[in-house]
Every structure is written in C-alpha cells, then in structure tokens.
C-alpha cells in the first residue's frame, strides 16, 4: 500500500504537470501556486522556469523560480510533474526567496519533507499502476466467464438445430436458430472487445488459410437470423472464394465490424451489399450501404475514437480495429462516398487482402 500519510501535512503543496507545460494555461491551472497564474501572465520568466524543469535533467534538485519559490521535479514511469510553490529549509538563498518566505509562511517546508512527498508521489503512481493491472486482470476474468456462458447458450442452440434439421441446421425451428445466431453475434462482439483491450493481438502471425467469402457469408447469415432478414445481399465471382493467409484470432473482426457499422449508419430499410472479387492479386471486398448525407465519411473514420455520427451509439473504435486487422493481413482499406439521391450518400468500404494463389504457395506459407 502506498504511504500517503507523509503527503498529508504537505497538502496543499501545489503540483504542476510538466507534460502540459507546453500549453501554458492548462499546464498551470492544475494546482499551481496562488501567485503563479499572475506571474505566468506577467512575463516570460515563469515560463522559462517550468520549461527548464520540463526539459532539464534536474530530478533530484530543488530549483528556485524567478519569484523566490522553489520546485522539485518528480520523474517516475510516465509521469513528469513538479512539486512547486514552496520555500525550502535549508534555504537556497537570495532576496526574492526571503520576501516570498515572509509573504507566505505556510509555504515554508523542510527539504526532508519534500523528499518524503516525492517518495509518496512515486508510491502513489506505483499503486495506481497496480490497480490498473488488477483491473485489466479482473476484466479479463469477467470476459472469460461471460464468454463461457455465451458458449453454453450458443452450442446448446446449435445442437438443437442440428438435431432438428441435421442436413441444414440453419433451417431448423426459427426460435432455436435465432438464439443460436444471437449468441454467435455476442461471440463476435467479444472478439472486438478483446482486440480493443489488447491491440497487440493484431501483431500475431497469420498461420491459417481462410476463405474470405465464407467469413463474410457466415457473418451475414448471423445478422439475417438475428433480426435483420432482408437487409443484406452478398455476391462473389463465380467459383471464387478468395483464399488468404489469415490470423484466426482476428480475421472475423473485419466482416463483423464492417457489417455492424453499415447496419448502424444505413438509412432504414435500405440494402447493404457485399461483393467479393479477385482483382490484381487481391481479394477485394466491397461493403456498400446508403447513409444519411452529410456524415462526411473519410479516411479519418479509421482513426481511433472517431465516430461517424453523433446521433448513434458507438465508441468510434470499430473501423480503427478493422484497419489494424486489415493491415495485419497485409491489406489496405479505403472508403468512397458519393451522393446517391437527395439527403442520401452511398458509402463504400473497400478492403483489399493479398490472395494465396495456389496450393503450393499455401503450403510454403504455412510451413514457413
């Protein structure tokens, strides 16, 4: 447990976030000493003091500011802050310091107390890190348990469907199929959450061969049975399935996030079309939907946290995750927008993934 007791008598020892110091107003508003905003506004000397602290290697020194107060830098892990606005004892010396000490007796602190505050700050940072690690671990356990529950629902429903209609489980009793596909949809969302929590998964090697048409078709079937029966059409060149070298862990995120995105932003009751074709050595998938005009969908949509529309729920991470998974598979993704009719744009997401051309190449790739 961090030792917070030593820091209590030092409150309100002002703290300045030196990472924010390049934005003067923000940097100083975070707990700066009472005189600082005025001094900051009045001239450059105060700026120079904090810029100097941010850039110099003065971690263990107490440095006097031009107005007679002192600061002590704390560098620890990813924090860079200054405990500031105090008059140290023993004194650093000078008229300005003497005047500051008379003016604000409460700011006089023994150097030993400052050192204790530094240790307490570092302990607090370590403690916070431990809380974060523990939170991630607990989230992981929770996700694991929820996935297990969903697995039971999904596989039980699939077994019922297979018993009811052995040759074609999708054609089994509708309510069984709906439960099965809804649980499939949950599984897809769990994959997205997992990648969101750990983007390093998009650095895993591609060690399987997958057929692009099949994974998109599977995804479309899920959505059809899970409440969107008439919203999708999917086509492919005759006899073309589009084999690629794939990472099993992440590939399915491409269709699930693109289709979820198209569904979310489409004009009601319009068709979402998915086309799979071979072009220039790539398997090219185009997902086309009709969206409200004015959402201005550009490549910016692939940036983390960018939402296409403010009137829809969403975190703005789906398309970013699609992009990193596409890149993991050696491919590219683009978006094209064109006006279709008044108030409606056509949005096309185009994914290009390098094909595996023949069995020999696949074998070589897999044995490499």
């Amino acid at each position, binding site marked *: 447990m961090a030792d917070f007791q030593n820091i209590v008598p030092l409150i309100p020892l002002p703290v300045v976030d030196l990472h924010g110091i390049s934005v003067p107003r923000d940097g100083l508003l975070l707990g700066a000493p009472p005189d600082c905003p005025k001094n900051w506004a009045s001239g450059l000397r105060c700026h120079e003091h904090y810029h100097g602290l941010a850039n110099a290697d003065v971690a263990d020194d107490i440095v006097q500011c031009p107005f007679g107060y002192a600061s002590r830098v704390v560098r620890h892990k990813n924090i860079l802050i200054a405990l500031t606005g105090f008059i140290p004892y023993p004194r650093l010396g000078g008229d300005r310091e003497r005047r500051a000490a008379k003016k604000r007796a409460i700011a006089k602190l023994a150097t030993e107390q400052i050192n204790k505050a530094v240790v307490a700050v570092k302990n607090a940072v370590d403690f916070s890190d431990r809380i974060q690690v523990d939170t991630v671990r607990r989230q992981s356990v929770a996700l694991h348990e929820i996935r297990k529950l969903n697995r039971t629902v999904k596989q039980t429903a699939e*077994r019922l469907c297979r018993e009811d209609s052995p040759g074609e489980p999708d054609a089994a009793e509708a309510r069984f199929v709906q439960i099965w596909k809804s649980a499939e949809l949950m599984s897809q969302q769990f994959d997205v959450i997992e990648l969101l929590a*750990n983007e390093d998964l998009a650095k895993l090697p591609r060690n399987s061969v997958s057929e692009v048409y099949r994974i998109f078709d599977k995804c479309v079937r899920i959505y059809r049975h899970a409440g969107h029966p008439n919203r999708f059409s999917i086509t492919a060149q005759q006899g073309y399935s589009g084999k690629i070298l794939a990472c*099993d862990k992440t590939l399915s995120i491409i269709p699930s996030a693109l289709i979820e995105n198209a569904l979310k932003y489409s004009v009601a009751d319009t068709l979402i079309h998915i086309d799979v074709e071979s072009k220039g050595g790539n398997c090219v998938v185009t997902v086309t939907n009709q969206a409200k005009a004015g959402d201005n969908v550009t490549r910016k949509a692939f940036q983390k946290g960018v939402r296409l529309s403010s009137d829809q729920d969403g975190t703005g991470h789906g398309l970013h995750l699609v992009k990193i998974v596409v890149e993991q598979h050696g491919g590219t993704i683009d978006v094209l927008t064109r006006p279709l009719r008044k108030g409606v744009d056509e949005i096309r997401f185009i994914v290009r993934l390098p094909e595996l051309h023949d069995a020999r190449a696949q074998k070589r790739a897999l044995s490499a």
Partner: protein
Amino acid sequence: MRVFSPQKSIASINSSLTRDELLRRSRILVIDDERPEIVDDLKRAHFAVDYEPDIDATKIDLIDKRIYDLILLDFGNVGRAFGSDEGLSLLRHIKRVNPAVVVISYTSKALGASQADFYRLCDAVLPKDAGISESLEKIELELRRAHSITNVWSGLLTVCGVPAGSADDKRLQNLLVRGLNRPPKLEALKQSVMKMLTSEEMQKTGAILLAKVIELAVRSVTGLPNG
C-alpha cells in the same frame, strides 16, 4: 514395372489423404481443465480423441511418445508442472518434443500482451465459443495440415536445426527425391538426418518424423492409399 516421375521438391508431392484415411490415421488430444463438449462432438464425428484435464509428470508420456497428430490446448489451469506460464509452458514442451504436432489454441480467456506468445506459438486458434460445425471443420483442416508432407518435413528440419530454404534443406530434399526413384538411396537420407541429431531425445523424434515423411512421399509416388 512402375516408372517413377522425378520430383523437384517436397512441395510438389501430393500427400493429401481421403477423409476416411484422415479419420483412421489421426489421433487428437484435448487438454482442458474443464471437459469441453467438443470431445463428444469429435467422437460423434468419428474422430479418435482422448481427453486429459492436465499433463503432469504422471501423464507426460502422452506427449513424449508423440502419438498425437493434433492437440487442442487450453491456456488456464493447465501445464503448471512445466512452468508458471500455464498452457504456454506446456505448449513449449510439446513443441520441443515434437515440432510437427499441430497445436490449436483452445481458450476463451482474453490473454494479455505478455501471454500472447501462446497464440504465436500455436499453429491455429479455435475459440472455445466457436460453433460446433465451425470447430469440426477447423479441426479437420488442421489435421490435414498435420498429415501434410510439408508440415512433417518442417518439423524434421526444426529437430535437425536446419533452416527452411537453406542449402542443407535443399540437399536433404534432394536425397528424399532421389530416394523415391531408387528406394535404397533413402538410406543416405536417414544417415544424413541422424548425423545432425545429437541427443537421444532428438534422434527419437527425428526417426519418427523421417519415417512419416518417407511413408507419405513413397505412398504419394506409388499411388497407394496412405495408412
């Protein structure tokens, strides 16, 4: 008299099995602390499958005898006898003993960055919450990979410490190809391989993999059914 056509490399040998042969020749091991229903699904689909909740010193022979072609491996609560990394520690042991066995990661746990090597070292990933049909298809596909001559050859190279595509790799492939045209020449391949294997453990693995490579190659050339 049969005329053997010359082969250029391992990759040109078609070692694919019929589904019946695949079912007959394959053995699957599922290692998971909680018995998953996929074991029963696999049995119903006529696969030879065994289940173990964990591998420890008393069960290590199951791995060390190299009798399985494919292993479904959970991450959590297994493999603690091999190290603190649970399933990852066991996976490292499995791959050390037999680099040609295909290991499928079978976990629903969200592994952190430090545990991602588990996915990296596995040959494939099958989420535990995958559908039944999807799981059976995936396992069958990976079994085909396990029985492919390129996979077994790759495992043999790993045991011999020979980089894929190196001059030694090409020389050994050449010996195999020549051996197919004149079967007694395969002896030279065996001797070359055995010279590269220093420990008794490696010799055991090497001998098993070499025998499998030769069997797959000879049957492919003669057109006889594998098995």
